[in-house]
């Protein structure tokens, strides 16, 4: 799968290997994140929007998918905010704690 980011032309400029490594790491991280999100959105929204698959995706189902996707991302942002708040609280209470996962 890592070939996708190479294939998209995020190659390294050999003049600055440090920046090149950083860029590549950022790209890999962004790809993993996006892939994960797409996978989850598809899984959950398919469940919600296509209860009985017909011969094609109806316009109602397509609308549902668009809304569901926006909603899933809203949920993601809410969860992210709450989770990060919590991490910061725990770290404030006992320095050194933190990442359980």
């Amino acid at each position, binding site marked *: *799968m*890592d*070939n996708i980011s*190479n294939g998209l032309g995020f*190659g*390294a400029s*050999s003049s600055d*290997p*440090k920046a*090149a*490594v*950083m860029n*590549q*790491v*950022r790209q*890999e*991280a962004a790809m*993993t*994140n996006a892939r*994960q*999100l797409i996978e*989850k959105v598809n899984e*959950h*929204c398919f469940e*919600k*929007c296509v209860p009985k698959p017909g011969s094609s995706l109806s316009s109602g189902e397509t609308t*549902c998918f*668009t*809304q*569901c*996707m*926006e*909603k*899933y991302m*809203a*949920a*993601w942002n*809410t*969860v*992210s905010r*709450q*989770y*990060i708040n*919590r*991490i910061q609280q725990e770290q404030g209470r006992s320095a050194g704690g933190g*990442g*359980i*996962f």
Partner: protein
Amino acid sequence: MDSPSSSLQQNIDLSKLSENDKHELQQFIVNESQKARIQQSVHSLTDICWKKCVTGTIRSGKLDKNEETCAQNCVDRFLDANMTVIRHLDNMRNQS
């Protein structure tokens, strides 16, 4: 996790890195790994809390107030539960 490094070696000449660069990169990788771990947790929490909190049919692209509160509680309670499990395991270890 071995694929990124293999693709790195194809493209980037790491021998040109100075000692300073290496330290900076090490720190960068530590930070990025932590970010990735947090993002991973957010993905799995969203997965869990979506199932719990978004139970009706999809009517709009926004979370309604109930769903939002539910998602916030879901995160906090899941982490409480997680802490409880860890504490209990810790007790069990100390008793044996």
